[in-house]
């Protein structure tokens, strides 16, 4: 019997997170502590995972340095570490931003917090796997945690409905994905991505149909996770129905995991078939952008609006994906800055319309600038960032993927994307108009928790800082991979 090579160092951060999740559940059963104690455990787990990740980064000397321990299941490289950093940041921000929800959940807070950590672990494995089965496992761990989180306020029917919808459609997408995996296995005889690449490099397929169908299904399955058109229909309902306190994390985590897996699969296993998949991805990108912004424009609920804008953003990121591995820097920069804005946005939605509630009418934001200048300011920066106004990180992000796509010869896609960005301005301006230019109703002032406040300060600073001086983050992303 052959034992695969074991490298604890490669999965140490995930172990820390799992340990944190387990500890939360145990401590909760044994001592029934205050929610704050559980929050402390989350913080401890996230920080130690982050520290371990820094250690990993330093151990990997060069950008291209990659080992595949556990029998070629796990990729120990800088991309994995980078993805985990983003995920940890999003998890920490999500918990801080939705803290009021966790306090209100009472006895169920432990479950919710443990699920956040487990979802992080799942998506982190999606990013660091280099084997299709392992990617699927990560996807399922992450997704199932999210299904439960969506329904965590189970006494509310909207929350149940959202969870059910998410679960049914999500399982369907997982099934499509795994079927696609099976077909790529049928086409290449391998499941490890590097093995598939080696096979494709060594052989010329005379009948690639099976492999192409498999690849298409893989794209469909992950397209669901990142909510790209036409697999986006769940997003608005789930974003609206799930408790506001966790939606930000849910949306961001799924996007990061989905794109990490998608780019890993396409760039590692199938670079030789770029011509085949890039036009399909480009079509999905264009439709996602167009449909996302147009539908976002007509929403009267801020959460549905953010959901549709998330669809458009998936399209923008796919605009980078079509360019292939050279766009990796841009894609990760985009993911990092967008998810930060997204989580910040939902933290504000939670603070304004209630962390457990399900509706977030635009009207609730009327006159927020006078009721709570801080929240209005933070939301404005996040929205301008999502809109991609210069001097925010969102502009640099969009610019990066546009340049990549143009260089790859997808000029038409860039033109579609820039024009759609203008419509997207309208989407975000609507909210800003309501916050700054309408008289407040008799709504009580919205007061964010201290944790949410600090989180929003951090998100605002990051959005502006990386808009003015993007070089450090771009360098970090650039050092994470080699073409």
């Amino acid at each position: 019997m052959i034992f695969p090579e074991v490298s604890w160092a490669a999965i140490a951060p995930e172990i820390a997170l799992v340990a944190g999740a387990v500890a939360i559940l145990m401590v909760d059963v044994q001592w029934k502590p205050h929610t704050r104690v559980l929050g402390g455990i989350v913080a401890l787990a996230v920080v130690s995972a982050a520290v371990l990740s820094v250690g990993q980064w330093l151990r990997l000397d060069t950008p291209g340095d990659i080992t595949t321990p556990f029998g070629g299941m796990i990729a120990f490289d800088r991309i994995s570490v980078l993805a985990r950093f983003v995920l940890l940041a999003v998890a920490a921000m999500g918990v801080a931003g939705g803290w009021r929800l966790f306090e209100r959940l009472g006895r169920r807070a432990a479950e919710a917090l443990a699920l956040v950590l487990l979802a992080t672990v799942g998506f982190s494995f999606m990013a660091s796997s280099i084997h299709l089965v392992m990617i699927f496992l990560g996807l399922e761990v992450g997704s199932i945690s999210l299904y439960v989180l969506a329904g965590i306020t189970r006494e509310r029917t909207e929350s149940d409905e959202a969870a059910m919808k998410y679960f049914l459609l999500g399982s369907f997408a997982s099934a499509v994905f795994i079927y696609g995996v099976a077909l790529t296995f049928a086409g290449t005889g391998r499941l490890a991505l590097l093995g598939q690449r080696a096979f494709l490099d060594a052989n010329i397929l005379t009948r690639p149909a099976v492999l192409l169908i498999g690849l298409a299904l893989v794209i469909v399955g992950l397209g669901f996770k990142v909510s790209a058109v036409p697999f986006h229909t769940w997003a608005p309902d789930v974003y609206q129905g799930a408790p506001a306190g966790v939606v930000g994390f849910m949306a961001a985590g799924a996007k990061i995991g989905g794109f990490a897996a998608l780019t890993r699969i396409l760039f590692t296993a199938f670079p030789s078939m770029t011509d085949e998949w890039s036009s399909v991805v480009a079509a999905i990108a264009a439709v996602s952008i167009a449909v996302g912004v147009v539908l976002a424009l007509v929403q009267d609920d801020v959460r549905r609006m953010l959901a549709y804008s998330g669809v458009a953003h998936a399209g923008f990121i796919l605009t980078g994906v079509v360019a292939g591995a050279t766009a990796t820097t841009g894609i990760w920069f985009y993911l990092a800055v967008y998810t930060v804005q997204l989580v910040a946005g939902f933290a504000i939605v939670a603070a304004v319309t209630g962390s457990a509630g399900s509706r977030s009418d635009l009207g609730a934001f009327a006159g927020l600038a006078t009721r709570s200048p801080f929240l209005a300011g933070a939301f404005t920066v996040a929205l301008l960032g999502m809109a991609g106004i210069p001097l925010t990180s969102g502009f640099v992000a969009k610019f990066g993927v546009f340049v990549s796509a143009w260089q790859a010869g997808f000029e038409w896609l860039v033109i579609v994307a820039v024009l759609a960005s203008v419509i997207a301005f309208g989407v975000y301006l609507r909210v800003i108009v309501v916050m700054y230019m309408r008289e407040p109703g008799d709504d009580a002032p919205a007061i964010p928790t201290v944790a949410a406040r600090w989180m929003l300060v951090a998100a605002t600073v990051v959005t502006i800082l990386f808009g003015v001086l993007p070089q450090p983050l771009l360098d970090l992303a650039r050092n994470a991979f080699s073409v």
Partner: protein
Amino acid sequence: MLTWLILIPVLGAAVVALLPRRRTELVLPVGIAVSLIPVGLAGVLFFQFETGEAGFQFLQQATWYEPLGISYRVGVDGISLGLLVLTAVLVPISLAASTSIDRRLKEFVVYILLLEAGLFGVFVALDLFLFFVFFEAILVPMYFIIGIWGGERRIYAAVKFFLYTAVGSALMLAAIIALAVIHANQTGVPSFAFADLLALDLSPTVQRWLFAAFGLAFAIKVPVFPLHTWLPDAHVEAPTAGSVLLAGVLLKLGTYGFLRFNLTLFPQATVDLVTVLAVLAVIGIIYGALVAIVQPDLKKLVAYSSVSHLGFIVLGTFALTSGGLQGGVIQMINHGLTTGALFLLVGMIYERRHTKKIADFGGLAKVMPVYAGFFLFMAFASIGLPGLNGFIGEFLVLVGSFATLPVYAIIAAFGVILAAIYLLWAYERVFTGVPDKPENQRLVDLSGREIALLAPLVVLILVLGLYPKVLLDKVAPSTEAILDRIEQTTDFQVPEPGRLADVFVAEGGGE
């Protein structure tokens, strides 16, 4: 130095934002004080500027993001110098004119200062990425200024303004990316630096596409007919300070962009497309003037007069003669001064009467003689009375364009007459006759503060009207360099009288 010009308003905005909430009375003085520093800096720039040099001066550069060839490069030449001074002068004046802003004053001052920083940035940027950043970032403060402190339909106007201008700049962004990629294909590394992109070898077809993308962005900003519909809305709804800066400086981004980028980066396309732009410019001149005549609203009248005046600048620019280009640049400054002043005047009467309808006034000259005097002066400057600044600009444009586009020049000349009609007719209805309406009989004439606001503009108008050489000498080398470049890179040769005009200007100038 140029970096300081951009940074000081930003720092000033931060200072204003951090003023204690209760001390609202400090906000405006601090804001004005901050905005006076750039006036000094711009003055120093103006006098230290090496006259007779065509290239960029006061250059500064730093790498920003190297892998993509994005850099921070700033510099000034004869074309941007005057616009910097204009911006620096108009900001403190428009701030000081904003005493009637009674709510959220602090935010207002912050947005104005950020706007100022963005405007300086646009005019000095020598990297297309940097230029685009400022070009687009300007929209945000202006959007808030119109949307929060504007008139009744302010939100409609603000959103229209934002989206209209954003459509144009979106395609320009694509074109900028295309240029950088072409640079990467030709030299191996991408670059957004203006100087690098000038060296590119672009086929006529590529030039036309890129010209169209840049041109659309600038044409919307100018605004060139038929893309002007955002302008009356934005102007009418904006608060006085907003209108002054919008008309005075923001519109010039379009004409400046044409001159700086379209003519130099895409010379062949420029030569090929002259007719299109000239036709649109002339339509704008005549149409803007005709619509201005029938406006019942004083502010709208001034707004439409901008469409007409900006048409002259575009016509001059695409005349591709020395006179046309120089006249265009001078006219940018002139229009900023006179229209800025007219908007200030309209704002002052609005504060007193809370109406801008021409029909609501009459006989004001008897009640407010000083006000009437200033209004008449500015109207004459705007019409182009010899001795005042407007004359020099329009005359140069017409002489310059007659050399290459005689038919257009002749039609455009009617715009001057129409300008006299709408402004003088408006003057007649507002100021002459008997003040028969009781509300008008008790109006107070201009205060010392208001006169002090207008005085610097009057001085500048007289200086430019009587001795335009002070500016023309600095402008001419830069515009000549553009013409040289067009002649070198295309088959187009400026016909003889076109290049002669500069001799005549350099010697005579002010008549």
